[in-house]
């Protein structure tokens, strides 16, 4: 019988039985968000830090999620290390967590990480005592540098944020997995269940996704699909796939065939 505790995901000092991390944005409404996150089985949920709407109050996403999930604030939207570090400090004050999903983007069209600012921000955040989970390119050198700086995980993109194009460079992801001892989590680009399964089959420790579920026609059902995909891909990785060959290899016995 499969025991998820026997194959838990450990990031920094915390252990999780789910290897799926999920966003809280872009759902049709709060109830669908809560139902989807519940169906995904995810234990880590990402949130953004934004200026309050000075025109009005209302409940925050945290009022809905608090207590049931490990909340991971992000620095989405930041273009500089300076803004990312301040956002992380504001998140630490608002949420009383030193965990941060570090994002520093280079432009709005690609939302690609700016490696220079990302590395500077990561170094400063580690120095200030944050548990840093950086969203980064699928570049083995950048990932290695982030690991060397003391990040708790590396989170390379499969393809651009929200693109749904899946994992465009699985070979790089395999290299990143092989070269780093810390968790490797695919962050961004997941479009459907097979993308999440592939990430896990490549040896990744987890998958972080948002749009693939929240913008699906039926988010709750897609969340269920992602849960199974991540678990299936993880099992397949641990089971060890058969090698690819150019020629067939019969699976039925070759002896005793009638007419021979």
């Amino acid at each position: 019988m499969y025991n998820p505790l026997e194959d838990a995901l450990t990031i920094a000092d915390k252990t999780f039985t789910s290897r799926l991390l999920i966003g809280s944005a872009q759902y049709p409404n709060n109830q669908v968000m809560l139902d989807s996150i519940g169906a995904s089985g995810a234990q880590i949920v990402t949130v953004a830090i934004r200026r309050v709407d000075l025109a009005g109050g209302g409940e925050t996403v945290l009022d809905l999620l608090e207590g049931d999930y490990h909340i991971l604030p992000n620095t989405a939207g930041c273009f500089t290390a300076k803004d990312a570090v301040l956002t992380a400090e504001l998140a630490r004050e608002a949420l009383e967590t030193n965990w941060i999903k570090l994002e520093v983007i280079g432009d709005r069209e690609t939302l690609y990480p700016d490696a220079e600012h990302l590395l500077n921000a990561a170094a400063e955040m580690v120095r200030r005592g944050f548990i840093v989970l950086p969203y980064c390119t699928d570049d083995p050198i950048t990932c290695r540098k982030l690991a060397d700086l003391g990040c708790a995980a590396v989170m390379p993109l499969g393809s651009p944020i929200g693109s749904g194009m899946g994992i465009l460079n699985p070979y790089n992801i395999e290299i990143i997995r092989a070269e780093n001892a810390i968790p490797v989590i695919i962050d961004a680009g997941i479009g459907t269940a097979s993308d999440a399964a592939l990430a896990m089959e490549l040896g990744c420790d987890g998958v972080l996704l948002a749009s693939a579920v929240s913008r699906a026609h039926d988010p709750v059902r897609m969340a269920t699909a992602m849960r199974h995909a991540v678990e299936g891909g993880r099992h397949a990785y641990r089971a060890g796939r058969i090698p690819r060959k150019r020629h067939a290899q019969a699976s039925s016995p070759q002896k005793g065939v009638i007419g021979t």
Partner: protein
Amino acid sequence: MSSIRVNGEPKSLDVATVDDLLRAEAVDPTARFVAVAVNGVVIPRGRWDSERVKDGDDIEIVRPAPGG
């Protein structure tokens, strides 16, 4: 009156402390999950009623929002 920026908006407000500012801007200072930075430095909640607002201050008031 202090000429300050609040979440990017220039404002002239008659407030002495960060706590006053929050109330003036209709943000409940006792609400959870709110954080404030003045000139790029986070002011812990426990200092909101003593931190003076000065002319030219650039103040950010944030809280968590749905994110990916």
